[in-house]
């Protein structure tokens, strides 16, 4: 096949390219400027948070002894881990139900209930869930407000996000692959674990990471649903940020951004390697 020659763009499109570059650059500058500022000022050796007073690492060494932040981080990580795992399990079920069963009673209601938490203001979700838990506690004597109840709140939102991510992938799957496995005698569960699961694994992974981050970041639901002694990291950060500029918050931000950057670089590297290996295997299989 001969390649088509590169088309010569008309004048208005060339002008458009300049505009496109400028717009995208300005947009990304807007998105990344605050992140850059957070990191820069975490190394600021000055009691005044907006005045540069030289380089220091003192905020980080103080962070290592800040038990409030470390306890909060530990609790947040536990909740985020449980939340992401449960959200992916429930989200897979819900996505499966919505993609594979086109007709069942109350399907419209289910679609609504899956999508609504994506946009519902958090104060409403937090308040309603808390009032339900209080009523429940009065009738049944449990649950105490604490880690479990925060987890429930996060799971409600997390499941919605997980369902949307997994649903998108399930819809793109070629149903013939599953049908072929069935024709070859695989039972439904075998079809799921041997054919479907490997194909949607990547979307499960991104759903897990997304719900993990969302949970790690939430302050409103946690504030409503937490009890005495269960203060998550965002709650600590929020109460300090409310009072004004605080270098310890900048230090936390730099640590978070560093971890995310490492994870993204590592993740894309692993992904690229897996892709290469798959390409090699396909090429080998084609040769054989």
């Amino acid at each position: 096949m001969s390649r088509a020659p590169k088309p010569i763009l008309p004048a208005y499109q060339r002008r458009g390219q300049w505009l496109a570059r400028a717009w995208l650059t300005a947009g990304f500058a807007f998105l990344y400027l605050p992140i850059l500022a957070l990191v820069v000022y975490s190394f600021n050796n000055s009691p005044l948070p907006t005045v540069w007073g030289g380089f220091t690492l003192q905020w980080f060494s103080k962070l290592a002894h800040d038990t409030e932040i470390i306890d909060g981080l530990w609790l947040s990580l536990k909740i985020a881990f449980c939340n992401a795992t449960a959200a992916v399990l429930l989200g897979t079920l819900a996505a499966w139900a919505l993609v594979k069963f086109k007709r069942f009673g109350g399907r419209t209601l289910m679609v609504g209930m899956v999508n609504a938490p994506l946009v519902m203001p958090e104060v409403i979700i937090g308040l309603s869930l808390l009032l339900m838990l209080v009523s429940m506690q009065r009738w049944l004597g449990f649950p105490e407000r604490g880690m479990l109840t925060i987890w429930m709140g996060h799971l409600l939102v997390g499941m919605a996000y997980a369902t949307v991510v997994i649903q998108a992938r399930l819809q793109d799957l070629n149903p013939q692959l599953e049908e072929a496995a069935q024709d070859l005698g695989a039972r439904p569960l075998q079809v799921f674990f041997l054919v479907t699961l490997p194909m949607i694994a990547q979307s499960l992974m991104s759903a897990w990471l997304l719900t993990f981050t969302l949970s790690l970041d939430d302050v409103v639901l946690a504030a409503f649903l937490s009890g005495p002694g269960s203060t998550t990291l965002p709650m600590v950060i929020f109460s300090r940020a409310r009072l004004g500029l605080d270098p310890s918050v900048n230090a936390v931000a730099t640590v978070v951004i560093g971890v995310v950057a490492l994870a993204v670089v590592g993740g894309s590297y692993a992904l690229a390697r897996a892709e290469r290996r798959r390409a090699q295997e396909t090429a080998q299989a084609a040769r054989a």
Partner: protein
Amino acid sequence: MAISKTPHLSWSARTVVGVPYLWLLLCFMLPFLIVLKISVSEMETVVFKDLITWTDGVLQLQLKLSNYLFITQDDLYFRTYLASLKYAAVTTALCLLIGYPFAYFMARASKAVQPGLLMMVMLPFWTSFLLRVYAWKGLLSEGGWVAQVLDALHVDQVLIALALIPGPGQYMNTPFSLVIGMVYTYLPFMILPLYANLSKMDMRLLEAASDLGATAWVAFWKVTVPLSRGGIVAGSMLVFIPCVGEFVIPELLGGPQTLMIGRVLWDEFFANNDWPMASSVAVVMILLILVPLALFNKAQSDAQEARR
């Protein structure tokens, strides 16, 4: 329940549908009903009175509607709801104004760079939203980077003329800082659905328009924009609805002038401990976002159907 009536579903299929369904009913639907109930309940020291009582053969239904009367009559609540809707609408319009060209240029960039651009839009998601909002506090405070630039460009004069900030150099805790924070936070929520929509557009339609004599500008308004309506609706609702009830951003970046309904609800609950009042505020808020919510749901299911 409705599921069990459907005859075609097998036992395992019913589990697949039933487990998430039950969870959603229990933790999403039921709480709303409870909020509705508490909003019309009388509070007796610590417990709520039952709505329906049965004493001496008399069945009594007591609804306390005074909270709702109060909300409709009190000027503060009315103005706060109005302000929330206004700030949410302004934020949505600005996000669309910045985000549509952004998503458009992303979708028309060469195929090789598109995954990278998409990644860069999503990356800020992975770093804490709370910390990024806090960052604006530093940027807009006196001596902050953005404040200095705005001062140098004399943007503050324009903002004072628009009554968005009270005086020169005072950017923090104003309507201006609030809107900046909300646009910043919700911009990716506008860009992503628009990009998903625009990148799937059939380019042959534009070629056809050009063959039929349309200029690029006319083709953009007559072909591209109408075709991306689903993305516009989804993105706008993803921005508008959470903005109406936003709490963290007005608390960190807003000021005394920018009271929003999320903060009022929070204060009723945490400061005044008035749970029925907080519930009433929540119910009215839900009523306000019901129509946008229905629009969003429709756009979502249309998009899901379109993928097939």
